[in-house]
């Protein structure tokens, strides 16, 4: 047993865990902005997929990875605005709108990937992002290679968590966002435009999800594949619940999931434990449902989540 543990828990394991957590951090924090403003963004899976495609394509043709990230960002912001049109302006069911957005965005991703690249025997690829070692810090034993010799986007993701906590709890916009999510009528009476805040939150949410998608097709992998997201978006919906709609806790949830996932990959490779690897893949879903049931009585769900806001209706 000790040998297995020694084999598994190496520096490489923790570095991999941080990499696995990165797209989840972006998308989870993105979802968090939307949900704290009162809109459940089920478009997440589709937004990530479409952005992974647009980001990859832009990078492929321009040769610039950062231009790819910009293309992904633009995709995400537009998708967020579309979600705003459906759920804020039209006040449509957030569930159905979000699923519709995911269906549409996934369809568009596959469709345009085929239109742009055709059917090739070897999928086109790019030179993906390279790890950037941070001087001095990356020389620290253990912590250095795990935390400070990563892709640039990983550093962004790690900074995103404290930044989000600061924005949500220490800035006027964050206060407005939380009020809109808890009690839109109170926010409205105080002169805050509920619609404007929700649109902004959805666009931020789309932007962050898109970076998560772009990370997968441009850093973790060097190509776009149809299974590049494979349910990671849905995982993030679960992580937000698991994290009780709080930035730090949601981030911890993302790391916990990444830990399980990295462990699963190692155990699968070492083939020492005779448990089907699917059991590990199932774990985050089971854990989330159990947690939701246990915490339900004092869950910190944003009070106005799922309710459209119309001024004249109370």
């Amino acid at each position, binding site marked *: 047993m000790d040998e297995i543990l020694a084999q598994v828990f190496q520096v490489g394991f923790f570095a991999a865990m941080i990499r696995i957590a990165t797209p989840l951090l972006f998308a989870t924090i993105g979802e968090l902005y939307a949900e704290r403003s009162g809109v459940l963004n089920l478009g997440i899976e589709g937004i990530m997929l479409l952005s992974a495609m647009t980001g990859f394509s832009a990078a492929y043709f321009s040769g610039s990875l950062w231009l790819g990230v910009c293309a992904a960002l633009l995709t995400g912001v537009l998708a967020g605005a579309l979600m705003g049109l459906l759920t804020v302006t039209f006040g449509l069911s957030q569930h159905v709108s979000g*699923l519709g957005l995911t269906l549409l965005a996934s*369809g568009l991703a596959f469709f345009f990937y085929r239109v742009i690249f055709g059917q090739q025997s070897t999928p086109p690829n790019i030179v993906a992002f390279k790890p950037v070692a941070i001087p001095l810090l990356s020389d620290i034993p253990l912590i250095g290679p795990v935390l400070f010799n990563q892709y640039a986007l990983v550093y962004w993701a790690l900074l995103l968590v404290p930044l989000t906590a600061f924005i949500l709890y220490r800035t006027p916009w964050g206060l407005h966002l939380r009020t809109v999510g808890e009690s839109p009528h109170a926010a409205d009476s105080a002169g805050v435009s509920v619609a404007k805040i929700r649109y902004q939150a959805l666009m931020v949410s789309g932007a962050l999800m898109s970076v998560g998608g772009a990370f997968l097709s441009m850093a973790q992998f060097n190509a776009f594949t149809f299974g590049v997201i494979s349910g990671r978006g849905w995982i993030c919906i679960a992580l937000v619940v698991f994290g009780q709609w709080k930035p730090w806790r949601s981030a911890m949830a993302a790391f916990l999931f990444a830990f399980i996932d990295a462990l699963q990959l190692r155990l699968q490779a070492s083939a020492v434990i005779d448990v*089907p690897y699917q*059991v590990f*893949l199932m774990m985050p879903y089971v854990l989330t449902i159990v947690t*939701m049931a246990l915490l*339900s009585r004092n869950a910190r769900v944003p009070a106005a989540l799922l309710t459209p806001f119309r001024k004249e209706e109370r």
Partner: protein
Amino acid sequence: MRLRLEQREKSSPWLNLTLPLIAIAATLVLCGGLIALAGANVIEAYTVLFASTLDSKFNIVETIVKATPLVLTGLAVAVAFRAKFWNIGAEGQFLLGAMAAVFVGTQEGLPTWSLVPLMILCGILAGGLWAVLPAILKTRFKVDDVVTTLLLNFIVFYAMMALLDGPWKDPLSGYPDSPDILMDAEFPILLRATRLHLGALLAAVAAVFVWWLMRFTTLGFAIRAVGESPRAANYAGHNITKVIILTALISGGLAGLAGVGEAAGLHFQVMAGISTGYGYTGIVIAMLARLNPLGVVPSAIFFAIILTGAEAMSRSTGVPVFLADVIQGTALMTMLIALLFTSYRLRVSLTRHG
């Protein structure tokens, strides 16, 4: 200029019929733009898409075969959404139904006459009971049903993959395919020399049954009452918990039956790709049918045409087959927006006042 949504006093029944057609027309126009972008002739592409599914008796039957699971998952979603039980889990319930059917259908030693009825029964129960779990979580623990039903799909999927990778793995080929069901367990074919199987009949019966249930029974009335206003339903003496759990049982059972049909009538086994998202397409189908059980049938046939026709269109014009996915997403969006106009009207005022 200002746009404003104004509540209508009454929705006109005329709109109920025309809205889905308007939504479909808008979808085809929007997606026509994509066909043009892909460099094909829009009219030609659509002609191939529709004609290839309807131009011969064989192709029409194949379209009905494709529509069979879609009718059932569409009904599953329609029943659940009526009670505002947001069952996004038809996909998982479908897989469980298929697995239950194969489990029963591979048992040696059962009387041969009992195989088909037992498969149907077990498949319905498997799907139904799986849907009861999120219903209990919703009613007892106030846990959001959208998230739970969605997550439960992945649990079923991975459980199925573990099964296909383990006990059910083909010992010779090593493929993740389950063993084939017994010959006696296969659904009878309704039309000689085609693939039209018992499942199509079951789907049609299910549509009529759900229509009757919703329209003429106390339970159907209760389901609608709970969906429209839980508080009023409570005052009227309906036990909301009971109604939602029964709704889940029916909804999941229908999705499970869809899985039985695919396993027992078409593939005779379970494999990783047995569902190509039938549960999710069911949501689009139900919304387009305005949750009307009889409306689900034409709606499912429409999407069966899109799904099968897209392949022929892709072969002859080179437009990617994924147009079918885009059409599904766009149809859901346009229908949602169209639905808005049954209860609201758009007021455009050119001058700002008030």
